[in-house]
């Protein structure tokens, strides 16, 4: 029993060392050209995935704006929230209006910019309700609007947050 425990411990150490030695290649949510998502949650998951790697902060593309949102402009903020993780709740459907609401709960660490400047978070949790509308078979983000939405990166996905 003791030998097994020792082996298990050594194996865990080995795995940990491997993980630490691995190159810092950060997976990112790849750019999409077409909105082929079937549900509002999938659209929000795509948006949050892009946001997590800093693509909302660095600038979404026009094809994304048109495919996934009703926005007239793109979000432009020089700073961003840094989150530990986020959770996307199930959509609340309003079938009569062809609309849906999806709430995202972020566990915040702070507010930062890509120079590495950080202000600690005032509140640990941030909730954002995305309202989506179906347009020619595709769910698109209606609100929050581009001017008011704030980028949220994940500390594990965007190394420039420096937390």
């Amino acid at each position, binding site marked *: 029993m003791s030998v097994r425990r020792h082996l298990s411990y050594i194996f865990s150490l080995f795995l940990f060392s491997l993980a630490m030695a691995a190159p*810092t290649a950060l997976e990112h949510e790849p750019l999409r050209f077409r909105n082929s998502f079937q549900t509002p949650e999938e659209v929000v998951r795509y948006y949050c995935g892009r946001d997590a790697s800093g693509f909302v902060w*660095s600038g979404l593309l026009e094809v994304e704006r048109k495919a996934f949102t009703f926005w007239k402009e793109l979000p432009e*903020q020089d700073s961003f929230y840094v989150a530990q993780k986020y959770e996307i709740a199930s959509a609340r459907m309003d079938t009569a209006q062809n609309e849906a609401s999806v709430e995202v709960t972020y566990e915040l660490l702070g507010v930062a*910019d890509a120079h590495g400047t950080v202000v600690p978070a005032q509140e640990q949790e941030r909730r954002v309700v995305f309202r989506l509308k179906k347009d020619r078979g595709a769910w698109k983000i209606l609100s929050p609007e581009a001017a008011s939405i704030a980028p949220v990166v994940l500390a594990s996905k965007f190394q*420039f947050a420096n937390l």
Partner: protein
Amino acid sequence: MKAQMPIRIRVTLTIVLSIAIQSSLGHSAQQAFAAEPSIPSATTGETSNKDPCDNFPLPDTGTISVPQVPDATGTTGSAGQNAPAEAKPAEQPKRSEKSILSKIRNDLSRLSRGFGASSNSVSLQNALMLSQLARGNELSDSALKKSQQLKNAEESDRKILDQQYNDVSKSELESRLKRAESELGRMSKLLDQGRVSDISQADQAQLRNTLLNAADKARIAQTLLNEPQNGNPKTNPLFSNDKMRELFSKLNREQDSVIDRLLLFNGLLERERDALLQRLFLAENVRVALPNGQSKLIPLLHNGYLNATGKSDLDCPTFVAATLSPKFRKANLTTMDLRGIWSLSRTGELPEGVKWGKGREEILRKVSRGFEAIDLYIGEFPEPGDLLVHRIPWQPNGRVLIVKSYDPKRMVAQVAEPSADGTRLIEFSFPLSLDPADKDFRKIRPGLANLRLLAEDNGACRYKDPSPQKNALNKRNGENKR
């Protein structure tokens, strides 16, 4: 008697009087104003260090919260086009001298009101206002001109790159797109692993994401290439079908523009890229230092503001343009940085409660020497040409506005910020207080920092404007090349 007095004598008299008032009272100008019975108590400001909900606690500025003085600066007069040099002081004042000058100016304008509306001193005050207004317009116009120059440079670069793809066969285009995807992916990995010298960390972050987007776009384009062709086969094959046209539309905005240029550039062979690099306006070779001690040189196409902040020869229109636009603030001076600059300029110290990025304090200290910090919360007013920063520290949304005029009675500033494409300024009214206009005490809204760029060469920028053509010439001479 007063009306017949020559203006030069009256100016001297006014200055002497104002200094005498200050020295005899032994207080600051603001404190002197607080004792003035004619000052209404309707516009009490709030000190920035008394409301921790909205602003950072700052070191003691030695000032107190006092009622605001209406009409200390005005907003009348038409826009002039004077050169910034015309608004220059004789010599750059030090911090304390600047404060005295500011107080004298306030006293001067206050005292001049006593001489009657038709007197020459009112003309003098108007001249002062016109000068400030001209400087404000000069700054915003120059910033706009700079943005337009860069847009022209971008279009020129895109045209040069498009030409490389004219009459290219479908198979050759496919091969180029594959090459671009591979090259861009390789470069983004280098940026993930290493540190690019001579550019800021934020520039690197932005470039890394731009490279990833460009690689993804190259991958998407390969799949779209097999869609039915419905374009003119003799034109650029990038526009051979509807979806490709949508993906590579030249109507797409700036972010797409740099991505498309990167994609087109990296689709070419190495020798073609090397030759082309000399012809592009917005391209640099940058060196990436890798963790294993090696370094790699990579060509980067950018938007014209690569590592603009802190450069010793940065011209003021570029500085203002990069500061006004959120697009360019990301990698240069963010709204948080500008709040830091305000604090450094005012108190010599950075705001508390912030962990500043590595090496950031040094840059901010240098840039802060180019500004006079105006404290709206103790009754100082914005003037034309000021940069009005609005940022609640623990919220990432912020903006920077250039002041065109200010109405102290209504507490409303007429401000401007660049349009999304950066080619024009959008003017609008920005109330400095969110309290109702008829309220007795109107507080200044939280999160404001007013910065006045010095009217002569300073720590932030220089009043010279090297044209893109000159830069291009320098580049062709190999100054910016490997």
